[in-house]
């Protein structure tokens, strides 16, 4: 989640679900929270009962809207206009300019006063691109986005780090190049009129939303934003999220109870799988994966380019070296750079969409699929299946024989005779997997809360946990590569892979894994109390520094704790980092360390104890006084003053202007989705993201802007009744019967035009493919008037496929490969299509 990370420091929800109950206003946007996070939604309901206003901004009237006070129908893909207009509205509002709270918060806790380099040019100046754009490479050179200021190289370090920047500031916030003024200018054209024109949201409705948010932000009130993948899955997804962070910083809502941004993750423990990642470009704990570039050649090179001089990331060597010690044990020594050479260095984009094309093009030969169903869940699903069909081998581990395992005999193109099973050379291995109740383990939920779950029953037959499989696979690889002196062989041999096993199935002892993740002293194996104890000399090992301390020195797994209370519930599970529940909670107190208000008390400075105290674990050095001023040349956290809540950031401040960390610009800018029926009202010359990675290939055709053959906007989404690509729900009778068939939702207005009746078969079509579904004609979907013309929106759940009990046309058959440059997440929330009544010649649906 670089959107939050770039502005606040960490790519995770800033607050907790329970804290929503203390909100005065909750804006749910880019999320259908009631349907996809029903358990977390209980806190929204609780807030509503306490009188909070619930605003749902969404193209469809969903089960979330049903419990909201305001439903704001918006055109899919126009979220950034809406958010940008909120920023503009807030900055020019009387309240924001007159209430001293906002000025105090923004001046001290954000980089509003920093002067931006005079070389910087805004999209407003360059008709839709920022300075530094290379139109040939479709990428930015961010050097002109830097702060204006002095650069100080640092020396005398054990491990090198980047030079320190001493930015110039204007505390009056009036300098035309100070971040606040840059932001103000950038968003000046994001007016309520633009919202009406681009989003289809009536002006007065937008103003009501803006006024509600503004009235519920301040010293005594807080507004929270909840978003999910409907913000993420855009070519500008990261910038949409980052715009929300910008807005919440301006409103003083970050780090405070009932405020913040709740990133609702796509499904169970997705947060966990980015913390200890399954992502190709991250190491555990959000350490950047080394790349095959000269700047990352050695450990020292890596630090010289990645390690900042100030902020908590200054401690990066402690985290990375402890990680290397955990992975490579005795093979990691100071002499060999702690086996840094064994870390794979990535040479390109290996995100999901890219590996699909690499598989299809024969570059990737084998694939493990665990907990995923790319034959249904992969964008341009037909291409995804062609990719699977071009592999040498494919291992699918799942609880049911999902489409990814059965595509070679059951896919639509096989049934239609277009592809013959005997022509598919892929050797498919299907291995039965255990479900959550059949294994011990933890979930890291949407607000970074790690909770342990016990095994209830043994898995049936040969079904085993993922941990079992991966451990066994590792052991066999070690046997296979024994004595192999190639780099790969040495790397595998060096890996510590000696976990104890338990039980009749020889399941991995997960407590042993947890102890490794939590960290320990290498000399005696004693668990460390937290990441503060980690060292950069190889004396400690830690599998993931942000999880450090999850196992106590006494050996207790804190994720097993189950003692809740009405506040932070610090004894319920464990929240990374260091059990902090609300991140950046230093901001819940004023610069002097006093609570902003009695009602919104969270942590505060106790002058007697000379400590930060309160309901939560301070996300701040516990004994750093509010009036602390860093001495010259201070490094790490010591370089931050006592008023810097954002400890991960270079300057300890939330970034209104982002000089580094985002590939598509320092400020959020509205670009239309890659496929759109309307043009960009702001930048007609640059309607789409200039840096979105696209796949220009014949098997992935795109629609032109305003292509009359594909006049409708389609958005894909999920239902409460099913789970992602359906592997865990479409085969389960009790769930399958609740939503037994694929369907599309369309408005009565469009249905009348096309003569479609509820229950009819319809075919939705794009240049990539078509999908058959049942029609559900409902007023919950409505046409929007965009720039004077009616734009129809079609909604289609993407759970369905050709296998299981609940079947239906595959929505991803329609989607294209195109993605956000930062997160490399696809754009599935808004593209264009056409729809007709009838069936496919060769029925996709049984």
């Amino acid at each position: 989640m670089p959107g939050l990370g770039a502005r606040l420091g960490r790519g995770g929800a800033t607050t907790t679900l329970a804290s929503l109950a203390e909100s005065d206003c909750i804006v749910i946007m880019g999320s259908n929270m009631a349907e996809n996070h029903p358990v977390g939604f209980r806190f929204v309901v609780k807030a509503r009962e306490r009188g909070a206003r619930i605003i749902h901004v969404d193209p469809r009237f969903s089960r979330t809207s049903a419990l909201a006070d305001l439903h704001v129908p918006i055109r899919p893909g126009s979220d950034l206009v809406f958010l940008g207009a909120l920023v503009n509205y807030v900055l020019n509002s009387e309240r924001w300019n007159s209430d001293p709270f906002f000025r105090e918060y923004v001046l001290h806790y954000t980089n509003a006063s920093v002067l931006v380099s005079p070389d910087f040019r805004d999209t407003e100046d360059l008709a839709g691109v920022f300075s530094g754009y290379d139109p040939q490479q479709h990428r930015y050179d961010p050097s002109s986005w830097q702060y204006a200021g002095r650069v100080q190289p640092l020396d005398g370090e054990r491990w090198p780090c980047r030079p320190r920047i001493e930015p110039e500031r204007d505390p009056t916030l009036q300098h035309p190049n100070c971040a606040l003024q840059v932001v103000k200018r950038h968003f000046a054209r994001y007016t309520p009129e633009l919202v009406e024109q681009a989003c289809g949201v009536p002006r007065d409705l937008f103003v009501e939303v803006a006024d509600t948010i503004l009235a519920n932000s301040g010293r005594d009130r807080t507004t929270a934003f909840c978003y999910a993948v409907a913000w993420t899955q855009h070519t500008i997804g990261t910038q949409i999220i980052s715009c929300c962070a910008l807005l919440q910083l301006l409103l003083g809502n970050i780090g405070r109870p009932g405020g913040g941004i709740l990133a609702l993750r796509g499904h169970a423990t997705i947060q966990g799988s980015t913390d200890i990642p399954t992502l190709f470009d991250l190491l555990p704990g959000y350490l950047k994966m080394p790349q095959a570039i000269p700047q990352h050649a050695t450990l020292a090179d890596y630090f010289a380019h990645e390690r900042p001089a100030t902020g908590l990331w200054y401690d990066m060597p402690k985290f990375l070296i402890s990680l290397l010690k955990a992975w490579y044990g005795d093979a990691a020594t100071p002499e060999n750079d702690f086996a840094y050479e064994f870390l794979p260095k990535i040479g390109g984009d290996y995100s999901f969409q890219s590996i699909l094309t690499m598989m299809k093009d024969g570059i990737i030969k084998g694939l493990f699929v665990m907990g995923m169903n790319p034959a249904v869940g992969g964008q341009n699903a037909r291409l995804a299946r062609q990719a699977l069909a071009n592999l040498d081998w494919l291992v699918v581990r799942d609880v049911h024989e999902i489409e990814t395992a059965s595509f070679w005999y059951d896919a639509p193109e096989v049934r239609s005779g277009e592809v013959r099973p005997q022509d598919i050379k892929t050797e498919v291995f299907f291995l039965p997997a255990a479900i959550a109740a059949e294994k011990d383990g933890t979930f890291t939920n949407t607000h970074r809360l790690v909770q342990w779950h016990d095994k209830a029953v043994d898995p049936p037959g040969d079904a085993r946990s993922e941990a079992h499989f991966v451990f066994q696979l590792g052991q066999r690889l070690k046997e296979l590569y024994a004595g192999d002196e190639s780099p790969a062989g040495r790397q595998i041999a060096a890996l510590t892979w000696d976990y104890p096993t338990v039980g009749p199935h020889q399941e991995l002892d997960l407590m042993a894994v947890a102890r490794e993740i939590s960290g320990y002293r290498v000399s005696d194996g004693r668990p460390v109390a937290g990441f503060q104890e980690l060292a950069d000399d190889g004396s400690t090992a830690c599998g993931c520094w942000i999880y450090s301390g999850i196992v106590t020195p006494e050996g207790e797994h804190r994720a097993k704790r189950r003692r809740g209370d009405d506040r932070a519930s610090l004894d319920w599970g464990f929240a990374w980092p260091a059990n902090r529940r609300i991140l950046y909670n230093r901001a819940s107190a004023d610069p002097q360390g006093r609570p902003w208000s009695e009602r919104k008390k969270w942590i505060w400075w106790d002058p007697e104890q000379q400590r930060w105290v309160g309901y939560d674990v301070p996300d701040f050095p516990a004994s750093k006084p509010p009036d602390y001023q860093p001495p010259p040349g201070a490094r790490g956290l010591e370089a931050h003053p006592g008023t810097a809540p954002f400890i991960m950031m270079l300057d300890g401040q939330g970034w209104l202007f982002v000089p580094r960390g985002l590939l598509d610009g320092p400020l959020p800018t509205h670009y239309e989705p890659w496929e759109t029926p309307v043009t960009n009202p702001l930048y007609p010359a640059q309607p789409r993201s200039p840096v979105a990675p696209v796949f220009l290939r014949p098997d992935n055709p795109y629609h032109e802007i305003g292509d009359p053959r594909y006049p409708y906007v389609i958005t894909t989404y999920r239902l409460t009744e099913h789970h992602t690509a359906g592997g865990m729900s479409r085969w389960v009778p009790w769930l399958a019967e609740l939503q037994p068939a694929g369907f599309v939702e369309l408005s009565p207005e469009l249905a009348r035009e096309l003569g479609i009746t509820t229950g009819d078969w319809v075919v939705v079509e794009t240049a990539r493919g078509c999908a058959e579904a049942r029609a559900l004609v409902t007023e919950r979907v409505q046409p929007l008037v965009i720039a004077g013309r009616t734009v129809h929106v079609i909604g289609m759940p993407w759970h369905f496929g050709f296998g299981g009990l609940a079947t239906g046309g595959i929505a991803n058959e329609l989607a294209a490969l195109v993605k956000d440059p930062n997160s490399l997440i696809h754009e599935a929330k808004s593209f264009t299509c056409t729809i007709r009544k009838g069936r496919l010649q060769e029925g996709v649906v049984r």
Partner: protein
Amino acid sequence: MAELRRWQHRRAPGEPVSAETRESYYGLPVIHGPHWRWPIVFYFVLGGLAGGSAVLAAAARLVGGRWARSVVRIGRYLAFLAVLPGPLLLIVDLGRPERFHHMLRVVKLRSPMSVGVWGLVGFTASAFLNALWQAAEDGLLGRRGVVRCIRRLPDRGLAAMSLLPAFFLAGYTGVLLGATAVPLWARNALRLGPLFLCSALSSAAAALSLLVGSGPDVQRVRRALERVEQVALVGELALLEAVQRGSGDVVGRPITVGLEGRAYAGARASAGLALGLHLLARVVPRRCRTVLRVLAALVAFGGAFLLRAAMVFGGRCSAEDPRATFVMTRGERH
């Protein structure tokens, strides 16, 4: 599944799903209808016939003279024979027939089904005794000692004793239907018992008048039976009209339209026709009378069957119609 999809045909292109919830919940029933079908219709007809026959036999025995003995004899046999399939039909209708005896675990006065089962048991016993006595009397059982014992039973007492269960059997089924949430039945709870009773008596009288055959007193017997039949038919006609009018447009819809509606109209026409034929028989030449009377009896009997079918299947339709339930359960504030 088919039940739910039945409502789809009402949909029109472009009509939002919300349109289907304006008058009812997608047209789905509010209540669950009974599963009863033909076995129950036959049971109702046969039960009525048995009860009515027993009543006629008992009345003939109690106040009729020797001339009415044919009614007593045939009535007793018919009552017994007609009731015999009853328990079988009921058992066949059970979801778990092997557990039929669970009906006899308890007596629940507020459950017409429970009371009915016990009534049926009582009636069967009484009909059996009456028929046994009659068989002994008629010499069908030989001359053994047991038979002499049977004949020693008080004949008039048996007849008097049979009256109550006979009336009960003929009428309780109407109460049983009335004590449900089915709108058509609930609306007519007070009328169904009397209606079924009238129909039972008219059909039994019609059946007996066909069966008494020829004898010295057959004309007198027929006259007596006809009188009963006519009274019952008049009552039946009046009640049929009352049921139709009392049900109103919505609740009465199943007995107005469709197959059930035709059956109901048929029942009414049959009763009227039977009555008319009887009246006609009085004025036509004697040689035609017998034909008319036989015809009248057949029509009356057919009417009794149509009535049960209309009410049982009409009740099923009624339960399916949410509007009927809403009419029946409309609160004061609506």
